[in-house]
């Protein structure tokens, strides 16, 4: 199932459990606590890379605990953004980039972090890294991105002058 970025990471995991156990009834976030995630080594037969233990909250519907195994998304492999480039502007912040990525690619923002620094001037670029927060329930690894602050002239050129077109513009003479 797809991660739903309108839910928390916790709720997404519970949704994944419910998807595999449709007859077990709904487990709510206030009924269980989660352990830290244990890293599993995937094999050719089993791509699951994570294990986490749910433990019942006292007297709230469940008792005991259970460990489940699942696959967290590898940001470098399983999240295809099509391009590494992120165009920024004067008012762009790391937070606004994170919001943009979350909205555009359906990522759960609370599970992600951006590191690096943004370009300080027009026409320059810098490397930034999108990575899973420590102990993320949903993601592992990281993805290198390039933040580009385009030159305004370059932008204009790119917009008005597609390849193989001409800059010699001529109005047609009206027909008589």
């Amino acid at each position, binding site marked *: *199932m*797809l*991660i739903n970025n309108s839910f928390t990471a916790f709720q*997404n995991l519970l949704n*994944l*459990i419910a*998807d*595999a*156990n449709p007859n*077990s*009834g709904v*487990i709510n976030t206030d009924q*269980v606590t989660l352990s830290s995630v244990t890293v599993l080594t995937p094999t050719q037969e*089993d*791509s*699951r890379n994570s294990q986490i233990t*749910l*433990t*019942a909250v006292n*007297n709230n*519907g*469940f*008792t*005991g*605990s*259970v*460990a*489940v*195994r*699942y*696959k*967290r*998304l590898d940001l470098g*492999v*399983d*999240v*295809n953004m099509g391009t590494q480039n992120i165009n920024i502007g004067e008012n762009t912040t790391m937070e606004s980039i994170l919001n943009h990525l979350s909205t555009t*690619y*359906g*990522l759960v923002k609370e599970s992600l972090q951006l590191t690096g620094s943004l370009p300080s001037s027009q026409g320059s670029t810098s490397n930034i890294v999108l990575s899973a927060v420590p102990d993320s329930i*949903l993601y592992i690894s990281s993805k290198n991105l390039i933040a580009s602050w385009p030159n305004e002239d370059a932008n204009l050129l790119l917009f008005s002058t597609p390849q193989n077109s001409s800059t010699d513009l001529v109005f047609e003479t009206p027909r008589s």
Partner: protein
Amino acid sequence: MQVNISKSPFQNLLDLVNSTNGLSIATNQVAFSAPTVTAAETFDPNTSVTVTPGVSAGYSGTVEVTYARLRLDKNVATPQTTFITNGATTLESLKTDIATALNLLESEFSISGTLPVVQNTTSQITVTSVLTSLLFVGAITVTADWPIVLIDLATAVAVTNLNGFDPVV
């Protein structure tokens, strides 16, 4: 003699009259008036009933008999006073449970009160004998208890090898 709930209240009282007097009066030979309270329910006797001739021949005149109607919690040696309920329990089903546990005839009592509406709560239910009961008298209070029902997580989550999250493409 003990109340036999497989028989009607009338038959139970008639059995009491017959066994005490060495008689074998048939059910259609006498009728009983409504019971009259003569003393507090803890006393023996606490009730009188007038016996009159029935539709079948054999007897004339009337006679008043006195006896002790049982308090509702006295028809079993160890009365149960707490009853387990759940979301499906109704006053009707609880009444049946009470009748079974206390060895009562459902026609001889009513219950009132509000059942617990959520887990881990209790409520008090009043069990009251009907005024015209030939066998039982008074009222008692029992506890309706909706306990917490905990499901083992390992049972609820039987499938522990989950499908992974789908890639973002």
